[in-house]
């Protein structure tokens, strides 16, 4: 359509004809350039899947930047509990404030500013009381206080970017300030990471059941399941 020659153009002044020819030529060249750029980018897209932001829990130091620097009002980063790594301790360093008065669920004893770590009695074994700690995702603000606390013991609590909230910015505002550069782009189909220890634990636990012919990423995902 663009390079269709109108009969009138042939009878116009030579200068106008030359200029018009140039303009048309450039337009066609521009269209071709756009097309080939699109083809090139689409071809590259075919090689691999898209990516999402995720933080490597093994690098995270729980500095609390995740809760404040995210472009969202309420950060996309929240805490998750890796139950397979948890010791189910009575005195949980991720749950209790260092200045706790008593080991109970009273607010002044809790480390979490929003009471997002939920403590639940599970079992009494030979005088040892075991508690399960779950994260109330609605309440969690991703400040990482519990992560820092839990790192003193097993480190089963760790932060992750929640992909129902993350808007996948070009330049993750948290990644920019992350002191350990823990943020990386990960494949969109496996957008969560687990700690290396959780991975090792899980491999042990799996034992000889179905150890072989397993995709490593698949293994990594087994300790977390997407809803």
């Amino acid at each position: 359509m663009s390079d269709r020659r109108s009969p009138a153009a042939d009878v116009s002044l030579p200068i106008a004809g030359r200029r018009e020819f140039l303009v048309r030529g450039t337009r066609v060249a521009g269209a071709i350039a756009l097309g080939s750029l699109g083809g090139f980018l689409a071809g590259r897209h075919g090689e691999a899947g898209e990516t999402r932001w995720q933080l490597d829990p093994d690098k995270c130091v729980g500095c609390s930047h995740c809760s404040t620097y995210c472009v969202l009002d309420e950060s996309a980063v929240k805490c998750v509990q890796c139950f397979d790594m948890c010791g189910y301790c009575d005195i949980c360093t991720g749950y209790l404030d260092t200045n706790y008065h008593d080991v109970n669920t009273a607010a002044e004893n809790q480390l979490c500013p929003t009471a997002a770590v939920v403590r639940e009695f599970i079992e009494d074994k030979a005088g040892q009381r075991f508690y399960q700690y779950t994260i109330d995702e609605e309440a969690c603000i991703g400040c990482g206080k519990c992560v820092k606390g839990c790192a003193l013991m097993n480190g089963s609590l760790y932060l992750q970017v929640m992909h129902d909230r993350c808007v996948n910015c070009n330049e993750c505002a948290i990644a920019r300030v992350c002191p350990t550069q823990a943020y990386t782009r990960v494949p969109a189909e496996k957008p969560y990471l687990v700690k290396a220890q959780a991975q090792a634990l899980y491999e042990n636990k799996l034992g000889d059941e179905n150890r072989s012919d397993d995709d490593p990423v698949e293994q990594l995902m087994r300790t977390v399941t997407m809803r």
Partner: protein
Amino acid sequence: MKRLVRSVRESWGRHTVANPFGGRLRWSFASLLALLVGLHSSIVSGELIPTPDFSSHSIPTTQVPSGSGLAWEYLDVAILVVALSLASYFALVTRSRRHLFLLSFASLVWFGFVRQGCVCSIGATQNVALAIFDNGYVIPLSVVAFFLLPLLFTLFFGRTFCAAVCPLGAIQEFVSVKNVQVPRWVDHSLGLMTWIYLGAAVIFSATGTAFLICRYDPFVGFFRLGGNANMMIAGGVLLLVGVFVGRPYCRYLCPYGAVLSVFSRFSRFHVRIPPTQCITCGLCSEACPYGAIESPVSRATPVEASRGRRRLGYLLVAAPLIVVAFAGLGAMMRGPLSRMDPEVQLAEQLRMETLGLTATTTDASEAFRNARRDERALLEKVLVTQERFRWLGVALGAWIGVVISVKLVSLAVRRPHADYRADTKNCVSCGRCFWYCPVPDGKAPGVTPTTGPTEPSQLVQIT
């Protein structure tokens, strides 16, 4: 603190008694103390307190939410196509400022407030640059569409994307009330910033260092109803300036606008003023907030012509010198440019701390030392990065030189024309001139293809 240590120890003691794997816990009290004073990040390599074997309770699996999927992205692309088509139709066929205004309001609501300013075509420039230079980066197809579609539409219909689709343009269009004509020389020199910004944005995004356009997006804070305070202030100032100077961001900063202006220059159809109907009243030129309607330029007198030729000659000689000079300046910008890279910042901070030049530590330097990472390896890596930025600085400097030279040369060339005409590269098809044109019957400067005489079969005709 002591109390915690004691209780932790007690609880561990009980563990040792209570479970059969207790013997594997070999952490001494001293190491525990070390942990508590802040080396917690490095102890994760130790052994774990085992998860108990419960008689009745089964250990749950961690649940995480899945992503939002691609549906939104494809919906956005579909809406973009519809909006671009409507904008082109309104600008060229119905020629209604009211329609364009309503459409830009809809775009502002959808692309701005609902989709919160992401994906946007302006920022997509960086993704395309990164995708071209970095094999490992996978660019989402929707981002490719957001980059290419407005360019394609501009190639045919002019900058109708700016008119009523871009949310950043829309928000400025709404505040543009009292228009002050910017002096031409100010307009031309500030306009150079779009090209310089484009060069800087491409260099930083292609190397994966930073996404400048996203970081310094002045209006995204308004769309998200909250954000970086400095950028919110900058956005507020731009909007205030925008009351008097039309679309300051689009004209003097927007890097995508620079690309669009080139494509618009060669557009197939564009708003035009038919010389046969124009009464040369100049009202449209007065009304245009963007200085996009050129007043007639008379032919040069012989004296002016010879002076102009001489000036052009000087400029053509000076152009390579300007490029070389700016490239040299760019070579000296290695320091500030490379400091955009967080690793370079970290290495410099570590260096200053070791040399005792600074008393304060940063989060990054503390984390680096706590994790006992290898400083030498980091420094070696940073030296490579800095060396790369020396050449990127030269490239950026040369680019700035080219931009300035081209502008100077183009200003030195006189293009006489007797009629008022639309400056296709700067016109954003906002439709204000339609309102102000006093010629009845057709209510506006007519619209014709930019090239060649009109044919009855063509999309738009002279009215």
